[in-house]
């Protein structure tokens, strides 16, 4: 990037007239415009360049709308085939397997497609993830903002930030080789023995893959975003609130509950929904541990699939145009759902952090 030259050039040239001053009277310098002005005039009229620059920047900003429109247009265009074949039934229909008589949802060879098992898998794994992650994330945020010694705060915040920077595929790798064996050997037998009566933990899948593994991996992955956003909205609560509650004789926990959490609750809900948005669209880690079978099971230990996982898993091996189109339609549904979830969450978080009297107490 060129640095500003305006001040330097005049300072060099000014020396010469100053040195010649005794020889020549000061008449020419009165006629001449100032050297800075001459320098700027020599660069031409800046109005045109200013206009151009302004519009270039506007164009860059508008490109963001363009991207959203482009994604939407392309996905709608390419999912026409499946939309015309199934219509809205795509999202709730089921077929019957002619041989076994059991319900069946996804048969690429016979061009029978329904998104039901994938919607179920996405919702179930995301719900599990929220169930595990939210209490932990709020706990960490409370600890970091209200209780933590100052010396620990920086490193701990950095660690949770680092958790957010680990790529999805590495979580998946860790899930396949560490988490899944751990669940298979030590956790699942216990769950089946103690909670088998609920019907949520069946002993029919010895691999360790499945909804529970996906839920745990997702929980680890959305923890950082939920906890850092919760921290943000909690620090936005003005100090006067804390002081007022403490002055009434509250203990620290009562102060946090009444002074901080109650004021920040809308923002915390926003943070949780933003975490949900991440969990819904997470692809690689889920694909690697969920088992990838288009079936619906009540048991959390069964194999399943999710919307993102089925796209990642089948797209390059799709058996025909209808298969491709159905997968793109699932992608379109995922896009629209995450846009709505994210927009809603963003509005909630903004409602708290925007215009919050953080420093004005």
């Amino acid at each position, binding site marked *: *990037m060129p*640095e*500003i030259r305006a*001040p330097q050039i005049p300072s060099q040239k000014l020396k010469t007239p100053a040195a010649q001053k005794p020889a020549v009277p000061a008449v020419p310098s009165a006629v001449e415009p100032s050297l*800075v002005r001459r320098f*700027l005039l020599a660069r031409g009229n*800046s109005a045109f*360049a*200013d206009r*151009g620059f*302004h519009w270039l*920047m506007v164009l*860059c*900003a*508008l*490109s*963001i709308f363009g*991207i959203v429109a*482009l*994604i939407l247009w*392309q996905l709608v265009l*390419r999912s026409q085939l499946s939309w015309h074949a199934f219509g809205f039934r795509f999202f709730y229909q089921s077929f019957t397997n002619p041989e076994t008589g059991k319900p069946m949802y996804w048969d690429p060879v016979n061009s029978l497609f329904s998104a039901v098992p994938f919607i179920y898998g996405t919702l179930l794994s995301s719900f599990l993830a929220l169930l595990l992650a939210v*209490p*932990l994330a709020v*706990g960490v945020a409370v*600890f*970091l903002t209200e*209780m933590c010694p100052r010396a620990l705060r920086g490193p701990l915040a950095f*660690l949770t*930030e*680092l*958790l957010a*920077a*680990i*790529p*999805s*595929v*590495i*979580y*998946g*790798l*860790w899930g*396949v080789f*560490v988490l899944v064996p751990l669940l298979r050997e030590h956790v699942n037998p216990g769950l089946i023995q103690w909670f088998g009566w609920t019907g949520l933990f069946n002993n029919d899948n010895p691999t360790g893959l499945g909804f529970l593994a996906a839920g745990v991996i997702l929980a*680890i992955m959305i923890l950082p975003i939920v906890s850092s956003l919760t921290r943000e909205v909690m620090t936005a609560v003005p100090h006067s609130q804390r002081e007022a509650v403490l002055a009434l004789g509250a*203990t620290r*926990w*009562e102060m946090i509950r009444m002074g901080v959490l109650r004021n920040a609750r809308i923002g915390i809900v926003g943070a949780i929904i933003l975490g949900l948005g991440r969990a*819904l*669209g997470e692809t690689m880690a889920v694909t*690697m541990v969920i088992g990838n079978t288009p079936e619906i099971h009540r048991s959390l230990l069964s194999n399943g699939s999710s919307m*993102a996982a089925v796209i*990642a898993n089948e*797209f390059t091996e799709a058996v025909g145009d209808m298969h491709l189109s159905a997968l793109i339609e699932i*992608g379109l549904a995922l*896009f629209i759902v*995450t*846009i709505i979830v*994210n927009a809603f969450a*963003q509005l909630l978080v903004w409602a708290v952090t925007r215009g919050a009297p953080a420093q004005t107490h």
Partner: protein
Amino acid sequence: MSTNNFPLRSRLRALTDLAVTGLTILATVVVVTPLVAIFAYLVYKGASSLNLAFFTQIPKPVGVAGGGMANAIAGSAILLAVASAIGVPIGIGGGIFLAEFGRGTKLANAVRFTADVLNGVPSIVMGLAIYALIVVPQKHFSALSGGVALGIMMIPTVCRTTEEMLLMVPHAVREAALGLGVPNWRSVLSITVKTASPGIITGCMLAFARVAGETAPLLFTALGNDFWSSSLNQPIAALPLQIYVYAISPYDDWHRLAWAGALVLIVLIVLAVSLVRYVTSRGVLKGAS
């Protein structure tokens, strides 16, 4: 002991306080544990399978020992170069608009909101859209399409951090530049952006680190390649993609390579994030203003 009148109640309150403190500490420990576990296991597994061949050789067929991911590392570099060429200028331009021209306008608010929402769009959807936009008309997978997908994913992050950094530049600096008669575009580029450049660069590095580990948008754009390729028109290998393919394969040799690749990837990303942390915490901006 002014609370002697209600000893039980006050003791209960103190106990609750203690219990909650304990619970939050427990939560923090539970959150930090998987991180430490992942890193420890990654270093343990990755370091034992990392050698020079990993950085110099291309993948060997199944059953042949050895081999490396040299082509995947080079492929990732090419993809990221394409992505940065697209994502960084447009993102910075959008950020400049938000901070310098559009402050407080409806358009700026809409752009900011859309950028934040776009940031949360699943990366696999981005891959689908680029597949439909570039791969289908071209009729073959290509490095170019992978780079474009990653570049588009960089735009919202770069845009928002650029805006935030520019907002930190004091108004006096802009006024001083304009007072000297410097045209506005030049004042923005050479004064404001330059003052904020450490922050903007760290923002770009953050976006870079984020897309460096992305796999999903490359699955059906760059596709992967077992051989050397430097053409933008050919399928190309990428480090995260290769890790994925090797991780789900049934061969132990390939699993080892996947761990080594994961270690290399994570070291690069942690370096980038730490650098960002270091630069922003030193308050380069504060010094400049």
